[in-house]
C-alpha cells in the first residue's frame, strides 16, 4: 500500500484517497466526486457499467467509502476501509456465485433498503452482478429503486446497460467506466501489489487490462502456465481428432482451475456448517436434519462450480481469441502492439498458416462457442465444434 494518498487531487493526476485503486477512469471519477461533495448532484440509484475487469465494483465500493467518510473519501479512516472491504454496517453487498440472483435474495435487499442508516449518512446497497438479476428478481427491486427511503443509495454493477432490465436501467443514473490502459493497470499492479514492472507489464497486456485477471497472472505461476497452454492450442489442431482432444484439454484446464479454487473452499464451508449444527464431522452417517442441510449446501456448491467452470472456459476462450486478434494485427502490418508479445512464435505461425478471412472465421467460431455455452449447450460439444474451425492446414 502506498502512503502518498492525495485527498481530492486534481482529476488529471493520479486519483488519491479512497479512489486510489480506481485507475484510468477520470471522467467517471469526476461525476462521482461531485456527487460526494454536493448533495444536489447526488442520486439515489447508480448503475456502474464497464467491461469486465475495468473495476466496476472497486469504483462502487470506493464511492460507498467516499459517501460515508466524514472527509469525503480520505482512504485512511475506518469508514473508508470498512466500506471498501464490504464490512461497513451501512453497506450491504450482494455478490452471487450462482448463475442468477433469485427473487428471494432480491426481496431481502428490498427489506434492507427500507431501514435507515445506523452510523453513517447513507445506507448503501451494492449489487455486484446486477446483470444476473432475473426478470422476476429485477421486478422485485423496482419499487424500492423508484421510491427509496430518503437516505438509501443503490449501487448496481453490470458489464453494459443492455445487461440489466430496461425498467431497472431507467431508474438509475449511469456511470460508464472504460477499459483502463495497459500502463494504468501496470502502474496499479506495481504500486498496490508490489509486483516488478516487467511481470506487471506482461500481466496487464495478457489480461487485456482486466485488473483482477492481470493480478492473478502476475502473482500465480500456474495461471501463467495454463494461459500459455491455452495459447498453444492455436497451432496444435491439424485434424478432427486433434480438435476433439484440444476441446477436452480446454475443459480440463477450466476444471483444474475450478478445483484448485473451490475444493478447499467447499470443504471449509462444510466443516463450518457441521460445526454450526453441532454434528460430528467424522461420523459415517449424519442424522436426517443434518443431512438435509448438507444436501442443500452441496447443491449450492454445485451451482457455484457450474458457473465457475463456465467463467473459466470463457476466460480461456478470450485468451485464445487474443491469438487470432494478434495474427490479424500481423497480417495488417503490426502497427499496434501484440497482446501475446511473449508468444510471438505462436502468433506468427497462425498468421502464416491462415488467410485473414480464415482468421476472422476462427474468431467468429470462438464467439459462437461463447454464445452457445452461455445458452446451456454442453461446453465440451461447443468447444469441439469451435476447435474444428481452428484447424490449421497440414
Amino acid at each position, binding site marked *: 500500500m502506498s502512503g502518498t494518498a492525495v485527498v481530492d487531487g486534481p482529476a488529471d493526476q493520479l486519483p488519491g484517497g479512497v479512489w486510489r485503486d480506481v485507475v484510468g477512469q477520470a471522467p467517471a471519477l469526476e461525476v462521482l466526486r461531485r456527487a460526494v461533495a454536493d448533495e444536489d448532484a447526488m442520486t439515489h440509484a447508480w448503475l456502474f457499467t464497464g467491461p469486465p475487469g475495468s473495476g466496476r465494483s472497486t469504483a462502487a465500493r470506493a464511492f460507498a467509502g467516499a459517501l460515508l467518510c466524514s472527509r469525503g473519501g480520505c482512504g485512511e479512516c475506518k469508514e473508508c476501509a470498512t466500506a471498501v472491504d464490504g464490512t461497513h454496517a451501512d453497506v450491504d453487498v450482494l455478490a452471487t456465485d450462482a448463475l442468477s440472483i433469485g427473487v428471494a435474495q432480491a426481496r431481502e435487499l428490498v427489506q434492507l433498503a427500507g431501514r435507515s442508516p445506523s452510523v453513517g449518512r447513507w445506507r448503501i446497497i451494492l449489487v455486484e452482478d446486477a446483470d444476473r438479476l432475473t426478470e422476476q428478481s429485477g421486478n422485485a427491486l423496482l419499487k424500492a429503486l423508484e421510491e427509496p427511503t430518503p437516505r438509501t443509495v443503490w449501487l448496481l454493477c453490470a458489464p453494459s446497460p443492455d445487461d440489466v432490465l430496461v425498467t431497472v436501467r431507467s431508474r438509475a443514473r449511469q456511470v460508464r467506466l472504460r477499459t483502463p490502459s495497459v500502463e494504468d493497470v501496470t502502474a496499479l499492479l506495481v504500486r498496490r501489489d508490489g509486483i516488478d514492472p516487467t511481470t506487471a507489464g506482461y500481466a496487464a497486456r495478457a489480461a487485456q487490462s482486466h485488473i483482477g485477471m492481470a493480478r492473478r497472472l502476475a502473482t500465480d505461476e500456474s495461471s501463467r502456465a495454463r494461459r500459455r497452454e491455452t495459447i498453444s492450442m492455436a497451432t496444435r489442431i491439424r*485434424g*478432427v*481428432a*486433434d*480438435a*476433439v*482432444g484440444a476441446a477436452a484439454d480446454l475443459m480440463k484446464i477450466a476444471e483444474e482451475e475450478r478445483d484448485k479454487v473451490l475444493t478447499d473452499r467447499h470443504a471449509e464451508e462444510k466443516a463450518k456448517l457441521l460445526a454450526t449444527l453441532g454434528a460430528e464431522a467424522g461420523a459415517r452417517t449424519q442424522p436426517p436434519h443434518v443431512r438435509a442441510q448438507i444436501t442443500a449446501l452441496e447443491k449450492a456448491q454445485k451451482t457455484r462450480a457450474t458457473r465457475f467452470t463456465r467463467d473459466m472456459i470463457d476466460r480461456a476462450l478470450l485468451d485464445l481469441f487474443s491469438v487470432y486478434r494478434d495474427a490479424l494485427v500481423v497480417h495488417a502490418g503490426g502497427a499496434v502492439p501484440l497482446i501475446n508479445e511473449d508468444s510471438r512464435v505462436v502468433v506468427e505461425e497462425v498468421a502464416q498458416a491462415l488467410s485473414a478471412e480464415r482468421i476472422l472465421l476462427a474468431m467468429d467460431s470462438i464467439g459462437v462457442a461463447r454464445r*452457445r455455452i452461455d*445458452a*446451456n*449447450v*454442453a461446453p*465440451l*460439444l*461447443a468447444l*469441439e*465444434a469451435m476447435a*474444428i*474451425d481452428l*484447424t490449421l492446414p497440414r
Partner: protein
Amino acid sequence: MTESVDVPSRVPPLVLVSGPEDLLAERAVDSLLQDLRVSSPEVDVIDVEPAGYEAGALGVHVSPSLFGEDKAVVVHGLHEATDALQQDLLDYLADPVEHVTLVVLHGSGNRGKRVLDTLKKSRARVIDCPAVKSDRDKADFVTGEFRRARRKITQDAVQALVEAVGKDLRELASACTQLVDDTTGTIDADVVERYHGGKVEATGFRVADAAVAGEAGEALRLLRHAVAVGVDPVPIVAVLAGQLRQLAKVGGAGRGRSTDLARELGMAPWQVDKARRALNGWSGPGLATAIQAVAAADEEVKGGGRDPVYAVERAILTITRTHGSG
C-alpha cells in the same frame, strides 16, 4: 424367478417379500392371500402403507377382533418405512400374535435393515423378486408367463415380444396376458408381429447407432419413435455427440490393441471396438461436419430454435449425408 411365486398351500405366519420388481412382489402377495383363503375364507386383509403411518397403528391391526377371524397384515414398502413403523414391527416380531399372518414388502436399500434381520432370524419365509433388467431375464420371464398359462410360444416370438414391449415389465406381462387370451394354438413370431408389429424400443443410443452407421431412414424412424414414447430430444443429442466424439478419438489414435487404446482414451474396450467398426465410411472432414451439426442442434434443442425435433432430424440427416462422403 416366477417360480418363486408358487407358494405351497400352508402359509407361514411371517413372510418377507424382498426385491425391487413391483410386479413380481404384487403377484407374490396375491398368491399368498389366495392360499390363505383356502384354509380360512374369511381372512381379514389389512394393508399398511408407510406414508402417513401413525405410531401404534400396527398394534391395533394385529389385536384380536370381535369374531376372532384370521388376519393378514400386509406392510408395503419397508424400504421407506418411518422409524415408528419400524419400531412397531420390531415390537410385534418380539411378541407375535396367533391367527395373524404378517407379510412385509421390501424394495431395496438399507432402510429397515434391523426389521429385515429380525424377520430372517424369526425364520420368515423369504420370497425374492429380483429386478428383471437384461433381455435374457425378460425372455425368461416371458417363457415363464406362457408356461404358467400352459401355452406354447416359439423362441423367435419371445424375442420379438421383448423387443417390442420389453421396456417395462408390467407392460410385458399385460402383453403376454393379451396374447394368451386373444389367440389360440402356438404363438409364433407372426402372431406377435400382428399384435405389436412396427413397435420397437427406441432409445437415444439406437438412434445414434443408426445415424452413425449412415442409415438415414432407420435413424429418422427410430427418432420419431423415441420422441413419440416420450424420450426428450436433449439426451438424444448428447448421445449423438458422445458417439461422434468416440469416433473422432479412436480414429485419431491409430492402430494398437483395443484394451491399451481404451485405457489411453478413457473408454471401455468394447466402445473402442464398436467405434472401430463404425469408423468404416467415415473421413476426418466428414466427422468434423457431423460434430458441428450436432453442436448446432444442441443449441436449438435447448431453446435456441423453434422445433427441437426438427433440429435433431436435421443433425441426423447431416450425419448420414457426411457418412461415406469423404
